[in-house]
């Protein structure tokens, strides 16, 4: 589970590079990342804006994606690659507590949706 307190908050002098000369402040603060693998590997993609749900309230959007995934799995089998994208969508949109609760309800047979 997530820890509540982190030791990673940079101190103020680190954050503002106060020990360095003022001109170095303008440097791109990515020095600590040069040794990592290229960050560009993570392509930023997420559930697209769905025109069926144009308003601020996206509750139904999350619910619909979850149901679409499970219907897809019911129709095509557990490992069908077409269902993967629905899975990604509902995981992006729905809080994990909701997903856990719905999974439990599905197992108990009490899920209130048209699976």
């Amino acid at each position, binding site marked *: 589970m*997530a*820890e*509540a*307190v*982190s030791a*990673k*908050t940079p*101190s*103020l*002098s680190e954050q*503002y590079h*106060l*020990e360095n000369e*003022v001109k170095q*402040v303008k440097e*791109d*603060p*990515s020095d600590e*990342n040069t040794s*990592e693998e290229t*960050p*560009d*590997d*993570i392509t*930023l*993609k*997420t*559930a*697209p*804006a769905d025109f069926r749900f*144009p*308003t*601020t*309230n*996206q*509750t139904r*959007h*999350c619910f619909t994606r979850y149901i679409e995934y499970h219907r897809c799995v019911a129709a095509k089998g557990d490992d069908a690659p077409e269902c993967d994208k629905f899975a*990604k969508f509902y*995981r*992006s*949109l*729905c*809080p*994990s*507590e909701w*997903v*856990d609760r719905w*999974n439990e309800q599905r197992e108990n047979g009490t899920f209130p949706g048209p699976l």
Partner: protein
Amino acid sequence: MKTIVLKWLFLTISPCDAAEPWQLGSQDAATPIMQGIIDLHHDIFFFLILILVFVLWILVRALWHFHYKENAIPQRIVHGTTIEILRTIFPSLISMFIAIPSFALLYSMDEVVVDPAITIKAIGHQWYRTYEYSDYNSSDEQSLTFDSYMIPEEDLELGQSRLLEVDNRVVVPAKTHLRIIVTSADVPHSWAVPSSGVKCDAVPGRLNQISILVQREGVYYGQCSEICGTNHAFTPIVVEAVPRKDYGSRVSNQLIPQTGEA
């Protein structure tokens, strides 16, 4: 001594992204929405000053000239067609000049023209926030979830803001369209970051979506904006916008130790 000089040199020219003592105006805009709000405020303020000066002038003039010693016999005017027409047309024109930019901003705020690149879930609890970045998981386990608690006053370092700092900030890439889904796990909260022009209620059982584009790197502060119990004043929000190419490594490296998951 050198650090004090440098601090005053650098910090006094840094943008206002957190509440300042005795602040009168808005914080500096970090998103197009906030810039639009500030521009609308300036538009309306112009007409406001116009009307204020006019009304005050008429009021003072009336008080001055209609003093019983100055003017013992007041004139009794019942109607005047020209002035009545003018005083109907001008206010409608002013209302129109205020309404047009106002509605333009209102409807453009709701438009989501570009698909967002990232979805971040901000879940309010009593009395902390949980952030989930779940775009990358391949199973129902979250890829990245962490809690964000306020740093208590005793643990603050020199230069940090009281009641505004948190231990884990929301790291977002700058100049990227984000979708933030705001909800709550217990009572209503509100996720507000003034410099980004965001205030979105976190209602349990409901997912509210906001679309923002943070235009510059920086650290933006906000506070919980819906009464949620005793520590409502002690649940701040801190958004840190990093360059897009650094976002990947920040998210995968700096935050992994807290979640223990890849």
